[in-house]
């Protein structure tokens, strides 16, 4: 059972600071981590490997520093790590990123399971995984909270707002992991040392992949960030006073209708 896990290196903060002039993220002084949902994806793939054998390949697109995320994934137990890095990839949106990842996955060849995290804490789009599945023309199940492989098929419990779905799919399949899927392991010290001092990371550029250059990078990206800003949070609360719930509800209704909200 061979798995590929697509991960992203993100700044370690839920309060992303933004340069108001350029609209870009301020990354200085913010440590980088593996996107949290992606760690669940790695753990999901490692669990399957432990149960059924096979390999786990971890892949990411990014600059040289993204190697640290791949090293951490190898310390957790991934067998192989690939960095997709090329100037031509810079500025890619989700469409372009999925295009590049799809090309890399085609190159890797036969795979049973593709794990992605649900979404990244910096962009929060939740699009790359599903787009990747579309480009590869394979089934996808998002929001996976339980995964098992039975008789050559994958059985997934998919989280839903109004109840969970239990789904089956043929392989290869793309799954996106959520926090509820598992508790990502902490690496063994020996594997940390091995990941940094003994293992190699493969670096693939445009030359290694078959990609239509018009579909990637800033120019090939259909979405562009027009402006980024931090919304100003204004909090004005008022507690409606009244003796009974009915009285309070009546007062609330009066207020809402006077504001023409109902």
């Amino acid at each position, binding site marked *: 059972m061979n798995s590929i896990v697509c991960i992203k290196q993100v700044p370690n903060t839920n309060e992303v600071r933004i340069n108001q002039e350029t609209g870009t993220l301020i990354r200085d002084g913010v440590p980088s981590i593996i996107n949290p949902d992606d760690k669940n994806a790695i753990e999901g793939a490692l669990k399957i490997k432990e149960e059924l054998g096979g390999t786990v390949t971890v892949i990411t697109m990014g600059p040289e520093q993204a190697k*640290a995320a791949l*090293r*951490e994934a190898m*310390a957790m137990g991934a067998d192989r790590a690939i960095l997709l890095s090329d100037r031509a990839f810079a500025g890619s949106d989700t469409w372009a990123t999925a295009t590049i990842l799809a090309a890399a996955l085609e190159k890797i060849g036969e795979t049973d399971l593709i794990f992605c995290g649900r979404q990244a804490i910096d962009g929060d789009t939740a699009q790359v995984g599903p787009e990747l599945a579309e480009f590869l023309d394979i089934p996808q199940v998002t929001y996976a909270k339980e995964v098992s492989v039975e008789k050559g098929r994958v059985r997934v419990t998919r989280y839903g707002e109004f109840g969970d779905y239990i789904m089956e799919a043929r392989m290869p399949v793309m799954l996106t992991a959520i926090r509820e899927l598992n508790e990502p392991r*902490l*690496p*063994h*010290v*020996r*594997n*940390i*040392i091995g*990941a*940094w*001092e003994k293992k190699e990371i493969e670096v693939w550029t445009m030359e290694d992949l078959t990609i239509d250059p018009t579909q990637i990078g800033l120019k090939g990206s259909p979405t562009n960030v027009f402006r980024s800003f931090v919304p100003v949070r204004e909090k004005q609360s008022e507690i409606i006073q009244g003796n009974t719930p009915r009285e309070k509800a009546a007062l609330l209704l009066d207020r809402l209708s006077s504001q023409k909200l109902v």
Partner: protein
Amino acid sequence: MNFDFSDAQKMIRQTAQEFTERYVAPLAAELDQTGEFPRETFGRMAAHGFTGIGIPEEYGGSGGSDIEKVIVVSELAKKCGATAATLSIHMIFPAVILKFGSEEQKKKYLPAMADGGKISAFALTEPNAGSDAAAVKTTALKDGDHYILNGTKCFITGGGQADHLVVFALTDPSKGLKGLSALVVDKGMPGFSIGKIEDKMGIRASETVELIFDNCRVPAENLVGKEGAGFKIAMTALDGARIGVAAQALGIAEGALEETVKYMKERVQFGKPLTALQGLNWYVAEMATKIECARWMTYRAATLKIKGEPYTKEAAMAKYNASETALFVTNLALQIHGGYGYMKDYPLERMMRDAKITQIYEGTSEIHKVVIAREVLK
């Protein structure tokens, strides 16, 4: 001159921090109350390769060296001095086997010590042989292919839990210190029993016990090194162990400062947070400066040891300074917390109790001054 940690060392620290938050911090207060040895946590430390640090991979270890030991022990000590002590003390035995043991002993004990979850202890101290380590009375007289061990060891940390212990005894009492030897004793050997379990002020979960040897037959192959090499083995082991105690003290001090910074930002008095009070800020400056000093002295001693250079003086200085720092910092941290610091709802009083032992075990501060002065004056 290079004060940088490698990428792997940074990731080991990150892992140790997450491990501590996940598995150690939630238990620290309870373990302090019950005094129960954190057996499950120890198993987790083995599963994550903490217990195998310093043991080469060929013997099933994690690799790494004394720097990684200091990193992990100090991170654990930030939240639980007792758990840090169990690991730090466990690490002495494999270091002794690695340096002085035979190839058979390495193959037999090191994999079990590394990932195997086996616990080890170091038994030198006796009721009348504390700082005066030369006054050991326990004997191990040869009888065919065995040594017959007789005597009592006291204040042996982790001794009650240990699967294997290195015990120092006189194989030739007529030679005094030159007749001292090191033997591996396994749990359950006939004639070996656990005596009094101590009720301690701090590091309460690290179970400290008395060991009783009553005609305990130890196979001759369990001798570590040669007969008469015991004192050298003990002193070498203690040099290394001092770096471990310095790491514990450093971690306790760092943890106490972290608690203090958090508290000072949250606690409002006179209409403003404590951080607005210059008198308390001066305390923080003193604490942070002493910690910085303790940190680099500890890593410096570890670096010398790894390089194979003499480090007796530096290890003694690091341990003496870090343990004094730990008591200084926990005392001020508790003071800044005021009444809350004195209560068991906050970890400060426990940290101060845990800090105290670092001035005493693996050699008191006073013995360390003797060692340091001897090195300086020679």
